[in-house]
């Protein structure tokens, strides 16, 4: 087990390095974008003097490396600064958005992961049957449509009849059950979008193993097909499945801006888009780091789980 712990420690350190590199890249990229916050906020009514005064006030007239180092020193002490545009502390700005994003991601994952595992296992069990083909066709259809199209169809069918709200508004007074009800349509949209990937990976990984000699042996012993798959094939198929699930979870956290816009859901995606458009660098940086951290942590979790599921990796010589 100590191997696992040292692996986790090593990976976390590497993760921190990754985050540092990402913060550099993000900073460089926002510097490359034409215009800065002062110009973008003042827009059409900008005059050279007001833009200059605005820059002085925000410290945007300082050289790029000074601004980056100042930001980094603050971030290392846990102070991510304030939004340049409206002076709100970034921690406040992000807190509710992040919890909304996580809520929707967990909700969508709670619907999609069991659903796709179940569909994948059943599809492997009844390989090439009508069920297998129908499940594949449906999942592929829903992943092929753009998200906003799936969202509009769901709104047309489920919201215009009054079953579910088309706007997923959340505020601090929203109770948990109400939140589940309000965000059902966005969660369902995301479920439809991510299910195909996970389901097909589950099916493929299991079918791959079904040709192995030990499965043959289990069958010859007279085990039921369900037992063969659940008890013998599935544990060995976990590694690829867990990796795909982790990738999809990361996507649910970082890539749902279109769904947020269509359902008017206040998550991190829209915050990121607005901040990039207005060149509000500290906010962009903070959100980008959250996204990067989500990828790093979920990948780490996937690796740890696949190691644990494989005795050959735990008991390495």
């Amino acid at each position: 087990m100590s191997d696992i712990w040292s692996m986790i420690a090593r990976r976390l350190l590497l993760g921190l390095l990754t985050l540092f590199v990402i913060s550099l890249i993000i900073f460089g990229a926002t510097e490359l974008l034409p215009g800065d916050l002062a110009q973008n906020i003042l827009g059409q009514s900008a005059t050279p003097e007001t833009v200059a005064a605005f820059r002085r006030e925000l410290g945007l007239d300082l050289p790029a490396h000074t601004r980056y180092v100042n930001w980094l020193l603050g971030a290392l002490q846990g102070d991510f600064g304030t939004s340049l545009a409206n002076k709100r502390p970034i921690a406040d700005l992000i807190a509710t958005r992040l919890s909304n994003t996580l809520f929707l991601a967990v909700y969508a994952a709670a619907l999609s992961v069991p659903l796709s595992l179940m569909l994948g296992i059943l599809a492997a069990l009844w390989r090439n049957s009508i069920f297998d083909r129908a499940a594949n066709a449906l999942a592929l259809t829903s992943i092929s449509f753009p998200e906003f199209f799936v969202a509009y169809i769901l709104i047309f069918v489920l919201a215009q009849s009054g079953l579910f709200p088309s706007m997923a508004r959340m505020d601090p007074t929203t109770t948990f059950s109400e939140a589940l009800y309000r965000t059902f349509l966005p969660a369902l949209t995301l479920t439809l979008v991510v299910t195909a990937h996970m389901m097909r990976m589950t099916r493929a990984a299991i079918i791959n193993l079904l040709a192995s000699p030990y499965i043959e042996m289990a069958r010859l012993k007279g085990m039921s097909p369900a037992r063969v798959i659940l008890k013998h094939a599935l544990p060995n198929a976990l590694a690829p499945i867990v990796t795909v699930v982790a990738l999809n979870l990361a996507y649910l956290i970082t890539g749902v801006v279109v769904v947020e816009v269509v359902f008017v859901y206040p998550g991190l995606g829209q915050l990121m888009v607005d901040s990039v458009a207005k060149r509000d660098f500290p906010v962009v940086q903070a959100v980008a780091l959250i996204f990067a951290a989500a990828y790093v942590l979920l990948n780490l979790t996937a690796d740890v789980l696949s190691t644990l599921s494989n005795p050959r990796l735990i008991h390495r010589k």
Partner: protein
Amino acid sequence: MRDHLTRGGLSRRSLIKGATALGAAGLILPAGVRRAAAEPKRGGILRIAQAAGNTTDGYDPATWDSQFVQVLHTARCGYLTEIAADGSLVGEVAESWEASADAATWTFKLREGITYHSGKSVSGDDVVASINHHRGPDSKSAAKPIVEPITDIKADGNTVTFTLSAGNADFPFIMSDYHLPILPSADGKIDATTKDGCGGYMIDSWEPGVGAKLTRNPNYWKPGRAWFDGIEMNVVLDSAARQNALLTGEVDVIDPVDLTTVALLERAPGIKILSVAGTQHYTFAMDTRADPYKDNNVRMALKYALDRQELVDKILQGYGTIGNDHPIGPNQRYFYADLEQHSYDPDKAKFYLKEAGLDSLSIQLSAADAAFTGAVDAAVLFSEKAAAAGITLEVVREPNDGYWDNVWLKKPFCAVYWGGRPTEDWMFSMTYATGVPWNDTFWSNARFDELLLAARSELDEDKRREMYHEMQSICANDGGTIIPMFASYVMGMSDKIGHEDRVAGNWTLDGFRALERWWFV
């Protein structure tokens, strides 16, 4: 002339809608006679969805730029003056004002007994500090250019005196600009992050880019205003999501309505469309220094070579009015209603071409949807109609990205949009005076410039009106801008919303004041 808007600001279409909703179809009276709904009454929570609003929005009035903050802070704050629905100016924090004979010194008397939400009284010092926030070398304010002519502000008890560098009869109008709210001050400075204000609504919570909740200010001084008990404002960027929210009853008002699907919304039960003629207009600008636009006969030929009504019908889906090649809207104070309307007339266009010594004309028109929604289609329609007058108009489709940097002010003939300004002087000085940076036709007319200066400091209404009429006429018959249409502000709302017949056209949402002017019937 389907859907030609009345000067009162309601389209016939919305009037019919409103009348049908009242169960009075067939009884259609001219706007101004019938109230749009029953008498106002107090109560209810208004839920509104707007297409504007960023997570970068803030409290500092120097940086307000999205329509969401404009509406939110207009509900929260008071201004020295207010533009009434009919375009005239009324006092808000200021009770009255008077000018010196040269219109260069203005004295505002503040209304007694107005308090902020915090309970503090509004004082003359607050006014000075509030305006000074936008002045001076350190100002980053978007409103700095409009307060630039102020050389000094002094408060004496309940009066505030502004000294200007030159006479300006419209100065009190400038004080209604949404950047210039009166906020509480200490030691001659306002706190630009304060939530306080002296308007009809108090901000309970505001999540920039998401929405805000407001409650009625129980001590609001203004009679007959602020009917709703509370307001829920939402930022809904996606036009389909906005429309869905209105259709499913999750919001009461949406702004704006997507014109490509407005017909579907019109048919929905319980929903009315409000269309208000404003100052927003779409133009085709010709560089009057370049050939062949140098010759006014060519400019006149082009002005007679496009079908304005067709553009209003097909590009604006009827939600607009035809323009007459000057930037003054039909809702404005000195609009010249009797000026001869330019209309599609290939024979006249040919006549002007002949005057210019030409049999035919072959030119390029640059357009992109960045100029205005439907600009490319509008240019194509223009080109089709101009062919009959012997004008070959080649439409050049420019990229949206960088349109304002690479095409506007660079190409000799291109599509442009203008949001318009509340006063004639403001609009003309910004884009039509000789040599100003946004004069996109590089037009210069000595008589026009002379009238502009004279009218600015003229306090006699009749003389001023005459001058502005003459300027509109010069602009239309000599200027380099073709203004085929004024685009209305189009909003969708539940038929439970009541408002006055006359809805302000200076900005969208009743001049940003729908929250305090409208009510539930």
